[in-house]
């Protein structure tokens, strides 16, 4: 789950990391009031709060010389669309005078199987670009989770960023707190970019990004409550509530599959046979007919879909349960696009019988089913 910048800043501040105070506005009037209150009429930054990278390039981050200009910037940015997502909130924060910009981040490193701290004195820009072009400018440390980030390790990293002791110590303190926050909130990514120094030598976190591991949400209701459902695509929010994993794509063949790997392989096969998948959808291991109903409802809500493909490999999932779900779903929803069904594995014969009785035909070969779905989608679109 992605957090907004303002939420990430608040969490880091709670762990003792110095973060300049900002507030969120949903209207230009609120932005004006916040700018006056926090900056006394001085310059502020107005920043779009949206789950997309490249906000600055898209015009979603602007500097205002005074409160009136902050209100005008807020009016421009609110309602703007960045990478398909509408901006509903802006963060208003006093503009800091910046001497240097660095980067600090933590991710779980799959190779070392440990949390890895990454720092770079080249912050403030796209860190992936720095990593790709000048990897030597990024320092990494895989932390042993049994002992955590040790003080001397943090200080060594601090000196990689700053030559001066007070600043190196300040950075080390921030890294230790960032590590504590990483485990404390259940993050899969926590980063400060830029980690800035001010002309008077303070080290502060000017921008923050935190991604929470979805598997942490059940045991952290306070973090789960930070979810902003308005910042997600509506179809994906509905699927999440229905217990399905759904990702919308741009093609015409709606896909409904059990298992994530098979779902990806099915999408790939649609492409292989000249079609484009409309979505990724994993109905999971359960055979609950209601899940099939919900899945079909979400797929058919996409106007681009001109054919729907079911691909079910019955292992634990029983094919006859899925067949009953399909029959039930088509009773509840009036389907306007052709349905191609492939079922194989546990209780396949019963499933074919159920579907045939309801007027559907069922295939057992994956390639044959995908070919037919692609052809059906093209015939409809033509």
């Amino acid at each position, binding site marked *: 789950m992605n957090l907004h910048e303002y939420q990430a800043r608040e969490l880091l501040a709670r762990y003792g990391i110095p973060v300049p105070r900002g507030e969120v506005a949903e209207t230009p009037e609120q932005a004006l009031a916040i700018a006056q209150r926090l900056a006394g009429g001085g310059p502020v930054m107005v920043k779009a709060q949206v789950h997309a990278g490249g906000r600055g390039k898209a015009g979603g981050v602007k500097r205002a010389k005074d409160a009136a200009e902050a209100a005008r910037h807020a009016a421009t940015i609110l309602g703007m669309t960045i990478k398909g997502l509408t901006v509903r909130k802006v963060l208003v924060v006093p503009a800091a005078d910046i001497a240097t910009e660095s980067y600090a981040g933590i991710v*779980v490193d*799959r*190779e070392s*199987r*440990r*949390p890895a701290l990454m720092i770079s004195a080249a912050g403030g820009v796209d860190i*992936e670009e720095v*990593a*790709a072009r000048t990897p030597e400018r990024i320092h990494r440390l895989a932390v*042993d*989770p*049994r002992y955590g980030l040790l003080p001397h390790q943090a200080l060594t990293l601090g000196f990689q960023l700053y030559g001066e002791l007070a600043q190196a110590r300040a950075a080390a303190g921030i890294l230790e707190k960032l590590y504590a926050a*990483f*485990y404390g909130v*259940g993050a*899969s990514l926590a980063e400060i970019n830029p980690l800035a120094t001010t002309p008077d030598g303070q080290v502060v976190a000017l921008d923050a990004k935190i991604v929470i*591991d*979805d*598997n*942490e949400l*059940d*045991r952290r209701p306070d973090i789960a409550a930070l979810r902003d459902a308005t910042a997600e695509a509506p179809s994906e929010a509905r699927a999440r509530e229905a217990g399905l*994993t759904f*990702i919308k*794509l741009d093609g015409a063949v709606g896909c409904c*599959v*059990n*298992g*994530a*790997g*098979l*779902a*990806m*392989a099915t*999408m*790939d*096969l*649609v*492409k*292989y046979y000249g079609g484009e*998948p409309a979505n*990724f959808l*994993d109905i999971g*291991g359960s055979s609950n007919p209601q899940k099939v109903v919900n899945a079909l409802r979400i797929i058919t809500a996409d106007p681009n879909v001109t054919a729907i493909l079911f691909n079910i*490999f019955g*292992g*634990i*999932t029983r094919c006859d349960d899925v067949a009953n779900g399909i029959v039930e779903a088509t009773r509840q929803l009036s389907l306007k696009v052709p349905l191609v069904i492939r079922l*194989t*594995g*546990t209780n396949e014969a019963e499933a074919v019988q159920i579907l045939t009785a309801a007027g559907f035909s069922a295939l057992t070969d*994956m*390639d044959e089913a995908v070919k037919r779905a692609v052809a059906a989608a093209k015939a409809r679109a033509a």
Partner: protein
Amino acid sequence: MSIFIDQHTRLLVQGITGRDGSFHTRQMIAYGTNVVAGVTPGKGGQRFDGATPIYHTVADAARETNPNTAVIYVPAAGAASAIFEAADAGISLIVCITEGIPVLDITKVLPYLHERGARLIGPNCPGLISPGKSKVGIIPGNICKPGRIGVVSRSGTLTYEIIHQLSSRGYGQSTCVGIGGDPLIGTSFTECLGAFEADPETQAVVMIGEIGGTDEQQAGEFVRRAMTKPVIGFIAGQTAPPGRRMGHAGAIISGSSGTAAEKMAALQRAGISVMKRPADVVELLEQRL
């Protein structure tokens, strides 16, 4: 032979009385797996289906029944704790089926197991099966048949699809291992490939990877350097968009190294025959055998 499990496997089931645990325990017993005990705190002293003894703790079960393998069907909230408990009781192979365990829990589990010399398979995996000998986990026994092909995969149903292709065209399996779809897992492709290389019964290996991470590239490097047996590969997720998690927590393209195209190229460079679609598996295998 086979890898990791065989007719000598003595299995302990953690979470044996739960909905999933009880269903799959019956399937495993029906397949012929030697299930020696189960654990459900609070149900110690009872018997599962009137036969298999149940204990409150893994330590009790281990002392009384001497299992060498544990399989975990405990819900996500308690699954990491169940892995620690199995390792603490000296069990050397721990298979965790449970999906949804926080990754940060696994960062603490892995060094704990390493210190005790235990191997974890999973989490979020279908387990493994050595056809005709033993089944630990949830892979349907009826699609497998005994033979000489090793199968290792990050996925569940996609693995069944490929096993089905193999079995229906006469290629049985030595062992099929599902290593799990999470970003951090106990046993990598490379470790499984090494075990298959050392297993005299295995003649060739099919590895089924997906987008995200670099485990497949490392496996390719291992194949190039150290494997004599033919390897056939598949990578799922060629149509996956970057930055979106495709169901599995580990299936996410970040940067360029996690894409399907990059992985397929790396496997090809290592001399692995790469399938374009699951139905190609037998044809490629026959070219290499």
